[in-house]
């Protein structure tokens, strides 16, 4: 009996939390006429026309460009963050380098509202010609990702037994060699999770995408809103719903497949940081 109540509570919570996703999914399969006559959760005549509209490239609206931008920027922001953080994490853990200043400073960065840096970064990018480029946005995503990636990697390297390093040192392997041949491979699970995490974070970022891009490098979180006023007149809700689904799907799929890893990582980042 108590378990039945539990299931009911679970169903209610799951429904409430996922409600906007359900609504958007349902709406994306309705024709414009059906949305205006039947805004409820039931679809009478499912159609794919909204997705066809979204995937049609026009001068003003190019979903493939937005997706490619998001992908490129998230990939760069993730790989660069890991490439910079891994050697630093190794030095922090094994060499106790910057344990007292560098690490807390970067960890605190996770909690600082990044809008603080928005204006000078905008100006810096303007001088350097990085506004509206994937490179520029990718660099910003690297900044966004570094704190959590560093925490994850510091935790992971702390868990690697020091005997592994010692054995390699006796064999005459250099520090860098140990990092790339021994510690790195042992930490592969943490590397993978930090990358998935960073990718989702960067894909979902909005503020810098809004500020630093106008047309060429627009990510999908910003581009999605362009579809809201697609054809003059009122909002085409079916089309808007379809583009939101397309933009939200990649991180959702990653999250669904990897949720076990991700939840462990969130815990590590939240409590040990």
């Amino acid at each position, binding site marked *: 009996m108590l378990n039945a109540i539990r299931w009911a509570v679970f169903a209610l919570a799951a429904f409430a939390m996922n409600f906007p996703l359900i609504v958007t999914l349902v709406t994306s399969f309705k024709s414009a006429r059906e949305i205006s006559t039947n805004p409820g959760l039931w679809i009478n005549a499912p159609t794919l026309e909204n997705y066809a509209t979204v995937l049609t490239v026009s001068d003003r609206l190019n979903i493939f460009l937005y997706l490619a931008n998001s992908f490129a920027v998230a990939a760069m922001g993730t790989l660069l963050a890991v490439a910079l953080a891994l050697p630093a994490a190794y030095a922090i853990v094994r060499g106790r380098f910057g344990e007292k200043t560098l690490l807390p400073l970067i960890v605190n960065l996770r909690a600082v509202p990044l809008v603080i840096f928005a204006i000078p970064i905008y100006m810096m990018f303007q001088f350097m010609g990085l506004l509206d480029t994937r490179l520029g946005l990718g660099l910003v995503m690297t900044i966004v990702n570094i704190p959590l990636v560093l925490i994850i990697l510091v935790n992971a390297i702390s868990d690697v037994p020091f005997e592994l390093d010692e054995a390699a040192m006796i064999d005459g392997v250099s520090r860098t060699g140990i990092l790339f041949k021994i510690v790195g491979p042992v930490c592969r699970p943490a590397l993978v999770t930090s990358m998935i995490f960073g990718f989702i974070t960067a894909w979902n970022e909005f503020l810098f995408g809004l500020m630093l891009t106008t047309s060429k490098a627009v990510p999908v979180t910003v581009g999605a809103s362009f579809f809201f006023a697609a054809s003059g007149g009122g909002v085409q809700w079916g089309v808007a719903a379809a583009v939101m689904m397309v933009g*939200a799907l990649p991180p959702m799929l990653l999250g669904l497949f990897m949720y076990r890893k991700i939840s462990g990582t969130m815990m590590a980042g939240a409590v040990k940081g």
Partner: protein
Amino acid sequence: METTHRLEWTLLATPLMVFLLVCLGFPAIVNLIYSVSDISFETLRNPEISGFGNFVAVLTDSGFWRANWFSLRFGLLTAILECLIGLGLAVFLAPLFKDRSWPIAILMLPLMVAPALMGLMYRLVLHEFAGPVPHYLWAWFGNSPAFLGPNSAFWTLAVVETLQWTPFAFLLFHMAYQAIPEELREAASIDGVMGLARFWRIELPLMLPTLAAALLIRFIDGFRVFDNVYVLTGSGAGGSTTSLSIYIYEAFFKQAAIGKAVAASVILFAASFAVLYGLNRLARRRRR
């Protein structure tokens, strides 16, 4: 020997330090200089130091204080709601997750959606003609409130934020709950401590560090909120939903009030570092 090691470690950490110095240190300095300069889009390249006029302008701007008040209220309210609901769900539903994990995946799904897209989705959900919520409210009760009007926008946004991020708090509490050793619960039930008493006296105290961490993280994220608020109300509803992040963004991009925007950033910067520094010291003292 010792010094060569030191050099090796420094070299390994150098790329990260240089990157952060260029990408954040330089902007931070630019921020500081601009904040005490008479700055406009024409004088960006050679700002003239002119004193603390920008700070005076910000601190005497009622909009700035209103944004602070919004962020503070929003951060506190949503953090508390998220943690209460998340904790309740994690503890009450714990038996469901014992040998299956798909329910957790379903609850986690909102965390994967970009807050900006989530905000856009709620624009659809709450839309007076196309949205299901007003549709059903009209059908069942013959009435539907203006969710994003000046009077209710704050509460609507708080609910939206809470629904998206309660799963985060839930997840932390779920992990903390699973980490409580089974022997403790058995020992408690042998001593006759069961049900709610067991929760209050044994489980909750053990989860207090997680509760503190979850509250802090959610407060910080709520305080600096931008994405979903910006796409849902565009700070609108008569400025009643301007968070501090939106205030800075709009001062710069919409009003071209660069000095004000920069001064507000510097104040926020100083405040966040002061708070974080204090918290870190507290945490370190605790650990000893």
